[in-house]
């Protein structure tokens, strides 16, 4: 922030220092400490650390007691059987429709949701799954998503309504949701395995838990947004609370609740891929296999299929949200489409015909190889410069500095930016990571995250400012950002992998593309949100556009920019951990290997916890910033 440094309201008698001086002081102290104590108090990684072994033992005990422990016997096993049953039912049902039948039914649903355009989109999208040679995997993925989304809605919508209607429940539930949302996707998986074993049931539950905060939050928001006058008017006419809920609040919240459903589906889609790590069936397993072999041609079709599914489901739910009522014509058309599909299913072969499929694994791999070779100089240069100039020195610094020095620095920075309580929370998280035996890997991941965040913020700020200052640029950029935000996170690893191979930089590249859109958008909105009268006043006093930006727009958009930073950090962390699959090392790699090798389960589990702790730490350091009084 280059906003004029506002003197902190210092107690009388002390010297008034500009805010950045404190930060500089911390840096100087850190450097001095580092030079004095370098190499002492480090916590090198140990694959056999006590917490890992403890978790391994715990897993053995739980596995052994699965049919004796009352908690499992009477609750968890039933939950597992129920979820697995639901998934099986959907899988069998969707498969039984046959491919023509399912395409017809999706077309029919599309028609009901938004007329012939959406019907065409839905049908074409599902045909493309067959064309890509991924019909069966797509159906499995769809079954998993539908199961998880149904459960998320059944649990989340009532909870959301309850939350939206009661301030007390909201106070209770918000911190829980906060923690759930900054948890990187990976962290959900290991506990799921512990309780629900590997397979579709635990994948469904993991997806459900991942998507649930969004369902609850948006539903609650929908209920809160209903005009209080309408509710009061209803109450003044003697409506009971149920009547008001059913006849006023729910209908008026309908569009936003539809958005909640839409977002739930999107979240489920991005989780479904990651859930492949714990043997979720479907498209995800292709992607994970392709990632671990750095085989772009193998995973590209599956990636494309996921994106298509995301687009189809997104457009369908959004269209359904906007529609007021379907007329008779659409019912007839939809019915005919579905029937036609089912009739064809009886005639056409059960498998999607071989000759209609297109395989492009070969050409894609060729293209990737070509790209790697022809752009070798550029990509390698980027990779090397960033590694030599940023990653390696930072990582060396963090891993060779004494742990207490790093912890003290984190405490000081968090205190400076957010206050005492967040600082203590951040410190607690860091100490816990050390206690879990994951200090070194944690520092490696932190390095990657810091570099990725720096790049994300830089690019996001530039794009956001450019968009805020030029309507034309904004018009070009907006649809791109929209598209980028509907895509599941995993998709971003594809181009990164194609360009940079399996390295640490791949994860950084992917997380930058993943996190830039929301940052750019928040910055743009923040700057555009500056009241026009203020801008007019500044212009009328003769500010240049640069002065306007630096002295008016950026300082006034400070909150939005800080929120963007916070969002960027949380998203980057999630992606960097996923990057463990493609050579990012650190905690992400530990998590992945925990699923692959039974002996590493303990390490994977604790690494998942450590990523959460890292996330909370970074969140606390940044979130307090926007609560400071505005200049």
């Amino acid at each position, binding site marked *: 922030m280059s906003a004029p440094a506002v003197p902190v309201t210092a107690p009388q008698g002390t010297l008034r220092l500009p805010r950045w001086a404190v930060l500089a002081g911390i840096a100087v102290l850190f450097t001095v400490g580092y030079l004095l104590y370098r190499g002492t108090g480090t916590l090198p990684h140990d694959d056999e650390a006590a917490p890992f072994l403890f978790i391994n033992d715990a897993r053995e005990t739980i596995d052994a007691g699965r049919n004796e422990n009352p908690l499992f016997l009477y609750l968890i096993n039933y939950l597992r059987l129920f979820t697995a049953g639901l998934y099986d039912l959907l899988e069998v049902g969707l498969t039984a429709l046959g491919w023509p039948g399912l395409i017809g039914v999706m077309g029919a649903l599309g028609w009901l949701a938004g007329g012939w355009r959406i019907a065409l989109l839905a049908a074409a999208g599902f045909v493309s799954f067959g064309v890509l040679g991924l019909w069966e995997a797509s159906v499995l993925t769809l079954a998993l998503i539908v199961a998880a989304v149904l459960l998320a809605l059944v649990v989340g919508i009532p909870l959301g309504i309850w939350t939206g209607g009661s301030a007390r429940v909201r106070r209770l539930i918000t911190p829980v949701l906060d923690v759930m949302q900054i948890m990187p996707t990976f962290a959900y998986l290991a506990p799921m395995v512990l309780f629900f074993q590997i397979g579709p049931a635990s994948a469904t539950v993991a997806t459900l838990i991942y998507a649930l905060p969004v369902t609850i939050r948006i539903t609650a928001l929908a209920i809160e947004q209903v*005009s209080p*006058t*309408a509710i*009061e*008017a*209803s*109450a*003044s*006419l*003697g*409506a*009971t609370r149920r*009547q008001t809920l059913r*006849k*006023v609040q729910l*209908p*008026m919240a*309908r569009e936003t609740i539809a958005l909640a459903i839409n977002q739930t589906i999107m979240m489920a889609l991005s989780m479904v891929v990651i859930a492949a790590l714990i043997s979720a069936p479907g498209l995800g397993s292709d992607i994970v296999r392709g990632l671990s072999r750095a085989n772009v041609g193998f995973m590209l079709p599956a990636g494309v299929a996921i994106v298509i599914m995301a687009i189809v489901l997104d457009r369908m739910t959004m269209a359904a949200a906007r529609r007021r009522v379907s007329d008779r014509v659409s019912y007839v058309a939809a019915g005919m489409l579905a029937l036609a599909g089912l009739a064809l299913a009886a005639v056409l072969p059960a498998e999607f015909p071989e000759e209609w499929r297109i395989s492009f694994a070969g050409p894609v791999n060729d293209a990737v190889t070509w790209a790697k070779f022809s752009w070798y100089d550029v990509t390698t240069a980027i990779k090397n410069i960033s590694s030599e100039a940023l990653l390696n020195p930072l990582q060396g610094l963090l891993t060779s500095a004494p742990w207490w020095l790093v912890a003290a620095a984190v405490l000081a920075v968090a205190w400076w930016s957010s206050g005492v309580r967040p600082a203590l929370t951040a410190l607690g998280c860091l100490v816990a990571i050390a206690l879990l035996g994951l200090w070194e890997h944690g520092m490696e991941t932190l390095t990657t995250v810091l570099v990725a965040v720096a790049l994300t913020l830089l690019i996001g700020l530039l794009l956001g400012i450019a968009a805020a200052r030029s309507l034309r640029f904004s018009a070009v950029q907006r649809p791109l950002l929209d598209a980028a935000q509907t895509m599941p996170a995993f998709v971003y690893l594809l181009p990164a992998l194609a360009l940079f191979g399996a390295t640490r930089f791949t994860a950084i590249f992917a997380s930058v593309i993943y996190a830039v859109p929301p940052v750019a958008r928040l910055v743009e909105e923040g700057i555009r949100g500056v009241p026009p009268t203020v801008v007019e006043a500044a212009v009328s006093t003769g500010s240049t556009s640069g002065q306007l930006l630096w002295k008016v727009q950026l300082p006034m958009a400070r909150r939005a920019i800080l929120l963007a930073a916070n969002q960027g950090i949380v998203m980057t962390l999630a992606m960097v951990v996923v990057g463990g699959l493609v050579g990012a090392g650190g905690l992400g790699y530990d998590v992945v290997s925990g699923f692959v090798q039974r002996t590493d389960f303990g390490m994977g589990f604790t690494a998942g916890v450590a990523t959460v702790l890292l996330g909370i730490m970074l969140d606390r350091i940044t979130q307090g910033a926007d609560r400071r009084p505005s200049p």
Partner: protein
Amino acid sequence: MAAERSSASDGAVIEVAGLWKIFGPRSERVLACSDKDLDPAALREKTGCTAAVRNVSFQVRPGEVFVVMGLSGSGKSTLVRCLTRLIEPTAGEIRIGGEDVGSASPARLRELRRHQVSMVFQHFGLLPHRRVIDNIAYGLEIQGMARADRYRRAREILTLVGLDGHADSYPDQLSGGMRQRVGLARALAVDPQVMLFDEPFSALDPLIRRDMQAEVMRLHREVGKTMVFITHDLSEALKLGERIAIMRDGSIVQLGTAEELVGAPVDDYVADFVRDVPRSHVLSLRWICRDPESDEHLDGPVLPADMIIRDAIPASTASARPIRVVQGDELVGVVDRVDILTAMTSDAGAPAVHAEKASA
């Protein structure tokens, strides 16, 4: 001061006595001690509470239009919401149709809201997902009335408020004035005994506001409901209100007819409020008549004491003699051209008010 004016307290539709509403933590405790008499800023400073309604008492007679008027933040909206406990009062007694609202069970309270009291809101509070006809029928619907019956009733009301032909529109297709007609119709549809209006026209354009005021006066003549009308607009209050309560900082500072407020404001606050009101448009001859001078002829025209000053101008121009002001058969005093002109001069905001008031 309210009690002595509405002597027919047995016949009152709404009786409010000692009503308090304090927002904030531990409001009961504030009420119990002497803090409640602090002025608003001091109260907030000391306890963190806001007293929105302070010890308010009044009665509303059947068929009356009772106006509560005050600036924003004076507690008038809170007061009207307390009447049906849309906002729970902190203390005090409220009776509507003789029934104690304060102790009514939730079910009983709903019955009251469904059948006896309905409300019109400043921001309409219409349901955007329902057609006009369904909005009007909403109150009947939640009573459990059959669809055909409630639509029949809703159509009658639609005609009554002049919205024929708009039954199938959605609220967002209507203008502001028409939307408020829907709000009015919804409140009328349940055939309540009492209608509460919470600044219903303050979101409307001045011209439309005038139409709607005329509409309410017409409806009041036709259906004869008791009305409690909240407004911050003095001219609206004077136009509609049979009696007007002026609120300030949660208390009623004066309650009386328009004439009484303009003619005899109890304090500077009320005086300041009514200063710009053309006195000759509100006051009656009673307020300006005086004892005849010894040399005056008492054979001029005769006018009743409650005639508005403005309406006496033709008579005073027609005859040079002083007008004799009578109450029944009794002579109250006389008024000559000079008196009338003086009264009219003060319309322009001249401060020469208090001297005349003394003569009243």
